[in-house]
């Protein structure tokens, strides 16, 4: 069930009305039923995998605590099983042959084979849960059904935010929702729909034109297209997170914020503290710190190893392929360089004008991230290499600025396409410059109805309705 769909709207409304009139102590059971329906509605296979995985994790957690002599083997067995399933299902999903081919040949329908929807997200949460119990940082949950709700909660099921049991499960007991919170939730959902339909989906065809090679582009248009992809990805994924956080808020549940204006980051390490925060926290806690801690006597080597292994796993988690490997390698290099030069950069910062230094750092960080995302977005290495060649070519591909730049980005440069292009770029800049104020305004709850009216008006006036795309991060 897609977040931006009539079926989700009906689902959300029905669930909320039932939840509101349900006895308070049974509301979590309604949320569980609704979440299982949300998953099983479009993908019964995913429901089966989810229930199996959640029950396995739940009982593994209990057993790790109950049998101290076997805790290590129990933990390792569960971990290996979860990780193997994750890679197996991702491999099936990528459709590269192998198991996928065997299943298809055996007569399984392709849509049933898409088991992995949401799997990679809740598996990471399960791994963190078991690790916390194994390392005695927390106790296992005692209710299998509440744990199943933790894993399946519809607002965060498909693509996060990643949550911890200790933070989320106690919230299932919070029975009341204040009217202000309810309005904030509705407005947060409207903000997400605005970001997706007005910004991300408007940028999508401009970006696709450059990446798919349908337009012969020079370096200026290619650079713009590559940069716009990072902005599109941000709007797309933060829109998903806004809808998830807003939907949970309707039921009095606070999910983790996933983004904190990442394009204001003045270094790549700061960027990663502002982008997909819940996933980065998982990688830092589960991979970076254990590796760096083990090798801490080696100082810089510990940091480099930690960064390298973390991004290698992150690249593999996003997809199996050379382009994801290069993406992860680039970020490992960026962060290792920043780690080595941290104190020098602080000294530079104090020596130069802070405004200029920060401004240049923000621009450089954005360009470095965009460069890595060239590989992240490219379907294969040859597409990435073609884009690199285009970046090294003449600015307008041997034509004039109108034909070699505007026409390439604005779908041929006809009047309507040009209007759409300028409207999209203007909306994008206005939103990015006012983002902090808009977010504060939405969260303040003042003039809530006016905010909602304004957002809905913008969605109806400037939204993309014909070609609403799937959320990009659902594929991971």
């Amino acid at each position, binding site marked *: 069930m897609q977040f931006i769909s009539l079926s989700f709207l009906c689902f959300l409304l029905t669930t909320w009305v039932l939840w509101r009139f349900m006895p308070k102590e049974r509301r979590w059971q309604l949320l569980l039923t609704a979440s299982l329906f949300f998953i099983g509605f479009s993908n019964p296979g995913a429901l089966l995998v989810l229930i199996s995985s959640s029950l396995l994790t739940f009982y593994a957690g209990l057993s790790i605590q109950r049998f101290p002599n076997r805790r290590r083997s129990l933990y390792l067995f569960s971990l290996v099983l979860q990780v193997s399933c994750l890679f197996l299902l991702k491999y099936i999903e990528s459709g590269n042959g192998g198991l996928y081919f065997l299943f298809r040949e055996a007569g399984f329908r392709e849509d049933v084979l898409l088991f992995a929807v949401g799997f990679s997200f809740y598996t990471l949460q399960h791994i963190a849960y078991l690790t916390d119990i194994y390392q005695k940082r927390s106790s296992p949950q005692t209710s299998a059904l509440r744990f199943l709700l933790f894993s399946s909660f519809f607002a965060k099921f498909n693509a996060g935010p990643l949550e911890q049991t200790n933070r989320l499960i106690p919230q299932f007991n919070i029975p009341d929702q204040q009217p202000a919170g309810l309005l904030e939730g509705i407005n947060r959902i409207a903000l997400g729909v605005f970001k997706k339909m007005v910004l991300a989906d408007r940028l999508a065809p401009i970006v696709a034109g450059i990446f798919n090679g349908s337009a012969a582009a020079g370096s200026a248009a290619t650079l713009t297209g590559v940069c716009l992809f990072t902005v599109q990805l941000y709007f797309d994924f933060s829109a998903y997170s806004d809808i998830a956080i807003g939907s949970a808020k309707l039921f009095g549940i606070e999910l983790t914020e996933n983004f904190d204006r990442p394009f204001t980051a003045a270094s790549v390490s700061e960027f990663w503290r502002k982008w997909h925060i819940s996933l980065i926290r998982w990688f830092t806690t589960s991979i970076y710190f254990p590796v760096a801690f083990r090798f801490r006597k080696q100082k810089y080597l*510990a940091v480099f190893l930690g960064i390298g292994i973390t991004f290698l796993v992150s690249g593999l988690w996003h997809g199996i392929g050379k382009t994801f490997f290069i993406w992860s390698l680039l970020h490992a290099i960026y962060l290792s360089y920043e*780690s080595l030069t941290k104190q020098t950069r602080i000294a530079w910062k104090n020596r130069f004008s802070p405004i200029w230094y920060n401004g240049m750092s923000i621009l450089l960080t954005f360009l470095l991230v965009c460069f890595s995302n060239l590989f992240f977005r490219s379907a294969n290495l040859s597409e990435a290499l073609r884009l690199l060649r285009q970046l090294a070519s003449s600015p307008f591909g041997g034509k004039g600025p109108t034909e070699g730049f505007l026409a390439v980005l604005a779908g041929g440069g006809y009047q309507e396409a040009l209007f759409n292009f300028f409207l999209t770029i203007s909306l994008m800049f206005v939103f990015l410059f006012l983002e902090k104020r808009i977010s504060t305004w939405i969260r303040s709850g003042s003039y809530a109805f006016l905010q909602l009216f304004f957002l809905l008006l913008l969605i109806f006036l400037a939204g993309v309705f014909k070609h609403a795309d799937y959320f990009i991060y659902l594929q991971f």
Partner: protein
Amino acid sequence: MNEVLQKLNEVFCKVFLKNDLVIHLLSDASNIEGWDSLTHMMLISETEKRFNITFTFNEIMAFKTVNDMVSAIEKHLGR
């Protein structure tokens, strides 16, 4: 400033290459420039060397402020 905090201050000055850095019990990553997950492990390693102790993984995962570090060091030193 107690003895542990004073010695820890010297470790911070060494790791962050800043001789005039002054830490307090409530100091954390938000008010010490450059203290992040990349420098955190350097800090742990230098602290272990300075006090001749070995932290556990759970201890370092629980460090949020300088006070957490001081408490863990004092525990290892048996104070």
